[in-house]
């Protein structure tokens, strides 16, 4: 190899390494910057009152977002109960049982659903639940979020199941197991971690959705009992507080953002720990 060629290789290597490294830094940097900003702007407004109290009128000290934190929890619970089972089972169908044409159609429609703007899903939930029931409700908000979770859960489940080596299915079927037994006892357990990670991803993805909640869950300055009343949620709270003219509320909006991020992170860590323990018990 000539000296010039060697030098050229070294230079191109250096350039590419710098490019990839810089981009990786930027990717991490975005997250760090968001987190830093939230802490910088919002940490000051975080105190016991924020977690324990209801929102207070402007100028009254000690207001909090307890109702929105609980509201977000309730909405996500409902969304998960609705969206995750449908997503999981459709994913299983796609990966294990679907014929070619039916899988194609389901996959295509799922991708379309994934691409539907969240505000449109909100209108849909408004039309099918809020209008007939004549009230904004937790149910409508949870339904809207649940619909948004479906495509994410479907595709992540499908992808996870597809990573299970075909040899495992063969081994199970060669022992006389039916297709269903094989899926339930071998394939799903083998990809359990990946499936649950996908579910967490779906949850995290919708936890911060605001648009579908605006005219479904609507918002509430008070506690909301049951499932048939308007309910407060962190994203909608952030939206309302952030566009208000009050400095006090702006700080609380930042704090709410921080709490929302923290909750998603916490749910993630808890799921990882749970999955880890379950997996350990199994092996």
């Amino acid at each position, binding site marked *: 190899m000539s000296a010039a060629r060697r030098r050229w290789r070294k230079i191109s290597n250096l350039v590419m390494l710098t490019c990839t490294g810089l981009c990786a830094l930027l990717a991490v940097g975005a997250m760090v910057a968001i987190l830093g900003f939230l802490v910088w702007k919002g940490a000051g407004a975080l105190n016991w009152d924020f977690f324990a109290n209801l929102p207070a009128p402007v100028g009254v000290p000690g207001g909090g977002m307890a109702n929105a934190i609980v509201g977000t929890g309730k909405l996500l619970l409902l969304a998960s109960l609705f969206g995750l089972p449908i997503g999981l089972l459709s994913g299983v169908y796609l990966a294990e049982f679907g014929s070619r044409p039916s899988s194609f159609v389901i996959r295509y429609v799922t991708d379309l659903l994934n691409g539907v703007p969240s505000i449109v899903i909100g209108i849909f939930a408004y039309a099918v639940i809020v209008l007939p029931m004549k009230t904004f409700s937790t149910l409508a908000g949870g339904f809207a979020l649940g619909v948004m979770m479906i495509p994410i859960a479907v595709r992540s489940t499908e992808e996870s199941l597809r990573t299970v080596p075909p*040899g*495992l299915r*063969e*081994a199970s*079927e*060669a*022992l*006389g197991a039916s297709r269903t037994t094989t899926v339930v006892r071998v394939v799903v357990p083998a990809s359990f971690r990946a499936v649950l990670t996908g579910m967490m991803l779906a949850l995290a993805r919708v936890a911060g959705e605001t648009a579908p909640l605006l005219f479904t869950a609507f918002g509430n300055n008070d506690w909301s009992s049951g499932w048939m009343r308007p309910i407060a949620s962190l994203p909608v709270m952030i939206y309302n507080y952030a566009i208000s003219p009050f400095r006090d509320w702006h700080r609380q909006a930042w704090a709410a953002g921080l709490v929302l991020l923290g909750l998603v992170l916490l749910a993630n860590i808890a799921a990882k720990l749970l999955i880890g323990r379950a997996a350990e018990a*199994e*092996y």
Partner: protein
Amino acid sequence: MAAGGVRGVPLAGAAARRSAEPEGKPEAVTRIEVSHLNFFYGARQALHDINLAVPANLVTALIGPSGCGKSTFLRTLNRMYETQRHTRLDGSILLDGEDVLEMDLALLRRRIGMVFQKPNPFPKSVFDNVAYGPRINGIEGKLSDAVERSLRRAALWDEVKDHLQKSAYALSGGQQQRLCIARALAVNPEVLLLDEPCSALDPVSTAKIEELLFGLKESCTIVMVTHNMQQAARVSEYAAFLLDGRMIEYAPTPRLFTTPSDPRTEAYITGRFG
């Protein structure tokens, strides 16, 4: 699918409970009898008019170059081909005189176990791997006894008895393959199909598996696909040579290797092709 009328091979009927090879072991009982078997992947015919009688409690080896249909043939015996789309089979396969093609699939696969080329333990503990078959098939008796018995038969018990709850993935490749054999044995199959079980293993592991096959013959009939002609010569009593989806020759192993009757068999075993 199962053509009832094509059993007119020399071995058919009640008298055909005797072996294919009169000169070999006239007393051997036929466990599996294949007649006029044709197999298709879509429009492509992969097996042409295969006739073969597998003698009970012996090892029958299937040899031949890559793509000759050995594995395809093996997968017809327990109907594993049904997991693939667009396959078609005609002819007849009898297990102890019963039509395999009409049999309940779960029952058939309990009676004919299979071990694959690449070790494929489940991502579960050693114990749960072996217990899988008994659990789904609901075999009576104590589960732990069945597991121990199977692991002993697969010559793995001494190596894993203190690690039954550990992941099967912690075992070496050779141990994993013996675990797969134990898993197949746990439902007490009459026949064990082995699809190149040693091709991914080192010589020491291979020797262990060959040795345990020897002990298994008492209780099992073994049909084994192998690339390795030395292996076929070492472990099998009967050998079939396949080429391009046709069975060229089927004879007692010593005879097939020393005085093959077909020039193509001779060409293959002397290494002129394949």
